[in-house]
């Protein structure tokens, strides 16, 4: 698809929703869904909760190395259907993916179906109505869907991650349309992710992970923490995952009922991580015979010292453990692209002061 990545200053179009949609679609600026027309008043309104100047470059987004100014981000946020109060989360997410450990160039252009998963922690999640409970990764919440969508549109329209052009995903995933959620801190028996990593409980933090959509882990039969963890570890030993061989930091999402049972049986978060490290093993004999003869396997044996099996985690600390979702005996895990790191970033103003609330000063 021909795509125009150079924004004209202002575009005059017929006052018709169909004409507007056709134009944006023809330019390659949409995700396939209709957009909210980014009129000048809407874009101005979108920027009101942040103190950056409109032409401040907030981040540079690959593979095009596009300059993500506040104005451009706000334009994409309007298109995505965001409310203005969501923009601080969108901006923080884009700043996070632009950090070197995330490897945005690789993530945008890979054949792997990695999406940008955004997890929001802190009071702002409740303030903005970001869902952390039932159907947390599905449809129904404007904040979740539009924030994720805004980030994807910015990565496409500013970063150049256009399908078939800068984005070379073989299949992609629905998670590339939008993938944003809040952690269910109220039902987390352990520390929420941001506190675990040194933030204050009332810090508002966005975590970004380049990962696949959720892989469900159904366990209605186990009544012990050991049983649930066993099912989890067995689910994660997946051939065809980029994390086989211990690359990257996959995400384990406990449903609240599974988390409660595991915690009740005395497992801490670190215990969970160690269990997965020890038991999420893939026997080499079960690998593709071509892999077993490959130079890559030889290198893997030399690097890890393991000839018999391959771990999903390189170190036990490399697992991100969160709690999200509603009632039901399900958890989930998300394999990552592998060559990428989780990035966590506090939501801040341009002067570096933390945003405690979007609405209160």
């Amino acid at each position: 698809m021909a795509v125009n990545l150079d924004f004209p200053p202002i575009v005059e179009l017929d006052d018709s929703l169909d004409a507007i949609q056709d134009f944006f679609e023809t330019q390659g600026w949409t995700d396939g869904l209709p957009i909210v027309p980014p009129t000048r008043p809407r874009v101005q309104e979108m920027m009101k909760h942040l103190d950056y100047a409109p032409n401040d470059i907030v981040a540079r987004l690959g593979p095009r190395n596009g300059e993500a100014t506040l104005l451009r981000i706000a334009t994409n946020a309007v298109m995505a259907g965001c409310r203005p109060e969501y923009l601080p989360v969108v901006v923080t997410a884009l700043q996070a993916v632009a950090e070197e450990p995330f490897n945005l160039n690789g993530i945008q252009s890979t054949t792997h179906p990695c999406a940008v998963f955004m997890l929001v922690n802190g009071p702002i999640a409740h303030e903005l109505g970001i869902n952390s409970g039932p159907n947390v990764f599905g449809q129904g919440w404007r904040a979740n869907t539009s924030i994720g969508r805004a980030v994807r549109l910015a990565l496409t329209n500013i970063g150049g991650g256009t399908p078939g052009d800068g984005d070379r995903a073989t299949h992609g995933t629905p998670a590339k349309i939008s993938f944003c959620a809040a952690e269910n801190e109220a039902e987390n028996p352990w520390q929420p992710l941001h506190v675990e990593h040194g933030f204050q409980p009332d810090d508002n933090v966005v975590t970004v992970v380049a990962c696949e959509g959720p892989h469900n882990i159904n366990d209605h039969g186990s009544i012990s923490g050991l049983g649930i963890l066993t099912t989890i570890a067995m689910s994660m030993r997946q051939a065809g995952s980029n994390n086989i061989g211990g690359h990257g930091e996959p995400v384990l999402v406990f449903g609240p009922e599974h988390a409660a049972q595991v915690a009740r049986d005395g497992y801490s978060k670190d215990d969970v991580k160690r269990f997965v490290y020890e038991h999420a093993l893939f026997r080499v004999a079960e690998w593709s015979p071509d892999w077993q003869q490959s130079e890559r396997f030889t290198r893997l044996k030399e690097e890890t010292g393991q000839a018999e099996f391959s771990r999903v985690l390189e170190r036990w600390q490399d697992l991100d453990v969160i709690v999200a979702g509603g009632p039901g005996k399900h958890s989930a895990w998300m394999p990552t692209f592998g060559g990428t790191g989780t990035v966590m970033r506090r939501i801040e103003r341009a002067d570096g002061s933390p945003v405690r609330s979007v609405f209160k000063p």
Partner: protein
Amino acid sequence: MASSAFIQLARLQARAMGYPDLRIVVIEHPLGGIEPDEVLAKVPDAAAAVSSLMGVD
């Protein structure tokens, strides 16, 4: 060098890095997941293309 399925990405990245006129040798996709002798079969044409771009016989 870029495989044919990824030439658009290669040109996008070249432009983004300030090399809009970067000379890129295109090799027929795929390079991964094929037999070693299939990879070797692509070498003569690729080598010739590199030589030509460098002005070397």
